[in-house]
């Protein structure tokens, strides 16, 4: 078998999780619990293994030949439009395929433990396998249209998984919100495809590279910005970011897989894939991307500072980090942005899995104000979470340092000092909010235990672990009706009272599959930076991606010293945030109801806490005047004005009916028979007259 024969078999990579979805979704509860999890995990693992084989085959080819299109069948032939169901195997697609399947396999493994006891255990793995399939279609497709299929497909899975516990109204609403908000951006994606077809006559990626350069700058800018609108929706950038914090209603492994590591980076993929259009736009499109990214990084980082919910902090952090990635794309640092996508997937997945482990251990508590000191009870979780914390804060040597540093350096040496400065400020915020979360959860005073007098009798009856497990199980399990408490959203909103501590005894540790998945990702958060070190011959990833982004002008540091100086500056920024947070939260919280940062910020804290009131303003606009208008349109207008003309006709007929009750006396058949006879009669009449 030659390398190209193996590349032709690349379809096996997405086919394996599709098989899993096709088996697991219809089986539902007929399959017993652990089996479904192992099937789902195993197939994604095999998919990863095959992706490695495909990667090796691609790697064996000379660098300028590393692009291979596999045509499976002609999907959509209509008029001048011809779209194949095909795969484009090149360094960009295989890089995404590798980290998606790799991270997904580990999160699947973790989920076997996390979803234990859930009444829809099998369905969960069916959905997640479908998600992996759709994500692979998205990144491996050979045309915009097939990418769009994957794009919408991951949106469907996101909807299903956010709403997975649909008995909770909050979860059902959040799923719908996510789907519809991202669809707003998708209008841009669709119109971009129309424009691409109208101007270059094909939606294939293979045509785009050559044809984009010949476009007028205005057309290229329009296409780029429309595509970017799609990316803004999917990757939760300002102003379409509002769905991502709510998406935390989904089970935590879903947050890790879809809403941190993979799906939300689809927008980054799209911009990277479509970079010839951005490059052809003469700078306008790229500058927009860079500034939207920088603004999102800063604004979301600010919101993360004061959130009390362990998952919401991470959600805003994800939005902020995605902003960094777009910042990188906007300064033409495509390779660096992809590098950040991958390292972010490692450390953010680790953070979410760690958070899930904490939530699991504390009986569904998500309030960091009533945690603290957990490192003694959950050492593996604390280690993994801690590694990811240092990685995201940009501590030298860990994955996040190398990738974020690369993006910021490219911004600086590309003379984009404005976005660079914003990126540095955002790095301070990152250091702060992550340290705050780390300390409030794992260090400082223990605030999770039920107060002695209230918990006394309960503790006497059941050990803490059992109580926590029972509380957890009551929500998820079997045929029991979920408890009232479980039906309420577990999300802790800013400005609410701290959730009462409810754990008696000690929190329980993560079971084996959870710990294993989490630990593996934690290790990757530490060493992930090795993928691409900023030294000659060690920039593996960036060099590997070079053939894809070959046409993009390179930006280089003016000297080693200036590059090192910049890095030092970024590290210092992260450390400032880190130590500022330590000074405030080093001992935990004396009173869970009082957050020292929030107290200091005053009104600014409230604005940040409510995410600048942006979401609330939209919701109010939709709920009150918007809805009133729609009600008017569907009742007063449709029924009154438009149907009014009809009622005139109706009255006329009713008048006739009143005068001739015998005809309208009930048997409607008579009308019909009359019509039928009338039609036949007309025929006969014409025939007789002319015969």
């Amino acid at each position, binding site marked *: 078998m030659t390398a190209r024969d193996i590349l032709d078999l690349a379809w096996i990579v997405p086919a394996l999780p599709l098989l899993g979805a096709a088996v697991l979704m219809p089986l539902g509860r007929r399959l017993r619990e652990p089996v479904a999890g192992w099937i789902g995990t195993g197939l994604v693992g095999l998919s990863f293994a095959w992706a490695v084989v495909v990667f090796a085959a691609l790697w064996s080819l000379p660098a*300028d030949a590393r*692009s291979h*299109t596999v045509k499976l069948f*002609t*999907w*959509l*032939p*209509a*008029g*001048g*439009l011809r779209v194949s169901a095909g795969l484009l195997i090149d360094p960009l697609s295989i890089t995404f395929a590798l980290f998606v399947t790799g991270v997904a396999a580990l999160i699947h493994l973790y989920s076997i433990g996390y979803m234990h006891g859930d009444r829809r255990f099998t369905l969960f793995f069916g959905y997640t396998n479908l998600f992996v399939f759709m994500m692979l279609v998205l990144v491996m497709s050979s045309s915009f249209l097939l990418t769009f*299929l994957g794009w*919408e*497909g991951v949106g*469907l899975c996101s909807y299903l998984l956010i709403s997975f516990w*649909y*008995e909770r109204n909050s979860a*059902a609403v959040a799923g*719908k919100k996510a789907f*519809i908000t991202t*669809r707003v951006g*998708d*209008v841009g994606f*669709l*119109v971009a495809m*129309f424009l691409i*077809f*109208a101007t270059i*006559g*094909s939606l294939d990626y293979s*045509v785009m*590279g*050559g*044809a984009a*350069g*010949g476009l007028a700058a205005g057309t290229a800018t329009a296409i780029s910005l429309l595509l970017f609108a799609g990316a803004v929706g999917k990757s939760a950038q300002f102003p379409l970011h509002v769905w991502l914090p709510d998406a935390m209603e989904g089970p935590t492994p879903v947050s890790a897989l879809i809403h941190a590591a993979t799906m939300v980076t689809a927008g980054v993929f799209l911009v990277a894939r479509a970079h*010839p259009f951005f490059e052809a736009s003469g700078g306008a499109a790229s500058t927009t991307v860079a500034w939207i990214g920088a603004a999102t990084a800063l604004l979301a980082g600010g919101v993360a500072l004061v959130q009390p919910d362990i998952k919401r902090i991470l959600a805003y952090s994800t939005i902020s980090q995605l902003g960094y990635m777009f910042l990188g794309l906007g300064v033409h640092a495509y390779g660096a942005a992809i590098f950040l996508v991958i390292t972010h997937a490692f450390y953010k997945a680790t953070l979410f899995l760690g958070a899930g482990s904490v939530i699991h251990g504390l009986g569904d508590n998500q309030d960091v104000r009533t945690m603290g000191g957990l490192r003694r009870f959950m050492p593996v979780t604390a280690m993994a979470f801690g590694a990811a914390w240092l990685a995201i804060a940009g501590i030298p040597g860990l994955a996040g340092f190398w990738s974020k540093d690369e993006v910021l350096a490219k911004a600086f040496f590309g003379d984009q000092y404005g976005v660079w400065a914003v990126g540095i400020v955002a790095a301070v915020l990152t250091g702060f909010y992550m340290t705050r979360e780390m300390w409030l959860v794992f260090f400082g005073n223990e605030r999770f235990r039920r107060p002695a007098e209230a918990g006394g009798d309960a503790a006497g009856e059941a050990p803490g672990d059992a109580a926590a497990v029972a509380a957890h199980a009551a929500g998820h399990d079997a045929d029991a009706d*979920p408890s009232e408490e479980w039906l309420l959203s577990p999300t802790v909103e800013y400005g609410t009272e701290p959730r009462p501590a409810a754990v008696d005894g000690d929190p329980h540790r993560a079971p084996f599959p959870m710990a294993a998945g989490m630990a593996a990702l934690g290790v990757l958060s530490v060493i992930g930076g090795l993928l691409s070190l900023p030294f000659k011959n060690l920039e593996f990833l960036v060099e590997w991606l*070079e053939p*894809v982004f070959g*046409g993009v002008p390179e930006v280089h540091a003016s000297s080693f010293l200036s590059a090192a100086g910049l890095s030092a500056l970024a590290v210092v920024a992260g450390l400032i945030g880190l130590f500022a947070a330590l000074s405030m939260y080093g001992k935990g919280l004396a009173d869970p109801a009082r957050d020292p940062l929030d107290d200091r910020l005053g009104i600014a804290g409230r604005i940040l806490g409510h995410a600048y009131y942006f979401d609330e303003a939209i919701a109010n606009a939709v709920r009150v005047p918007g809805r009133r208008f*729609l009600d008017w*349109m*569907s009742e007063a207008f*449709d*029924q009154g004005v*438009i149907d009014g003309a009809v009622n005139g*006709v*109706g009255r006329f007929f009713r008048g006739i009916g009143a005068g001739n009750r015998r005809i309208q006396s009930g048997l*409607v*058949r008579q*009308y*019909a*028979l009359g*019509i039928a006879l009338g*039609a036949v009669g007309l*025929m006969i009449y*014409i*025939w007789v007259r*002319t015969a």
Partner: protein
Amino acid sequence: MTDFPILSALIGVPAAGAVVVALLPRRRTDAVRLVGLLFTFATAGLAGWLMWHFVAGPIEINHYQFVEEHAWFGDLGVRYLLGVDGISLFMVLLTALLFPLSLLVSTTIDVNVKGFTAWMLLLEAALIGVFLALDLILFFFFFELVLAPMFVLIGQWGHGRRVYSALKFFVFTMAGSAFLFAGILTVAFLHQGDTGVLTFDVRTITSWAPAALSVGTARWLFVAFTVGFAVKVPLFPIHTWLPDAHTDAPTAGSVILAGVLLKMGTYGFLRFSIAIFPEAAVWAAPALLAIAVVGILYGAVVAAMQPDLKRVVAYSSVAHLGFATLGIFALTTEGLEGGVFTMISHGLTTGALFILVGYLFDRRHTHLISEFGGLWRIAPVLGGLWVVAVFASIGLPGFSGFIGEFLALIGTFTVHRPFAAAATFGTIFAALYLLWAFQRTFTGMPRSELRGHFPDVSVRELVAVVPLLALSLFLGVYPRLVLDRVEPAVKALVDHVERHSDFREPERRVVPAVTGSDRPAETSGHGEDKP
């Protein structure tokens, strides 16, 4: 077998079924149901045979297959003339598929089963006749014949204000038919005056009219035909009969009404309005595109606010048929194919949605969203089917709805960018109204009075709806099954329009890749495509 009058058989079998059912004793409801199913399945079999033997034809206007031609009212020029092309083929297939499924979901009807089944079979015969007739009078005969059974089905087996709704349906479409009939007679008499031959043969009229009619006459006649069809589609603002008719119709009535009956309008646009009056079609296209866009957005917005599930789906039909109309009056190959595809896809997805709404009605005797809630928990399979149907109807890529909408939009975009861009926003609203209705009906915890009184789907119910959803998925993944057969007919129509007007479809060729130095890595290495 080539001499076998397959098209007559397609009309004759259900018609004969209606007669057989009428002769059965009233009390033998089992026999009636069985005979009804047998005849509809036999018709479906014949339609399958037709599909199998249909050849994706040459690009030639007036090219029909399996043509049957007999004198009827000889001196009047009215002939019994049937034929099928790529467009009508799928309308016939859709009809033949939806009827057996509609009878399957109608076992909950227990009043006068015999009458119900007989009228359904007559309706099927009439609908298939509409799509096969190539004589204007024969077409009009079937077109009007459809009204009677539909009227009775709503009026007698419906719910609520069924007589009001049936009458409203009747009055509206009858008013449209008056325009249509006047148009048919005028064009035929003009032809007689010009050539001395009185004929209603669509092929003859189509060849003659574009060159012979003055621009003004053709435009007036175009309006007459198009108004007649627009009521059926229904286009904004003459759509108000539709929600009432749907709400009060029995499930089978709604499935046929949305699935097939509305397509008589868009089919009429294609076969008559555009083919006979191509110049006028080009002239009127911007107005019709504008109406289509308004229909897409308006239908979707109004759908969102409906308190009744059936009205949600009914208004969604206004939006979907807006996409079909948009694609058709783009007059480009992609647009027209998208229009035809949307007609087929809408039959599958909306048919499925109406059947699924019917399952809720069978259990609770209401369509009001507020009477439900939390159904997913107690009926997980039904909830799963709903999810699939909802996303199929939203037009998620991978389902047939996406192919139709995408082609309609992209085909429109190449000639009328603003209309296409505006219509694209309809895809957001589609998600909004269906997901919102689904959320209120199926998510949350079930109301206490529903628990234990809401069984999940039965095998019969599963069998009736799964084929529609599976077909929608299949056509979303492999649309060539339809596109390859529709394309010749559509291209012939576009050529015909171009020949008789100043409209030119934008020429599209793939911009060749820039060879040379500036972007080497991007394009090299693509020569390895598998054949």
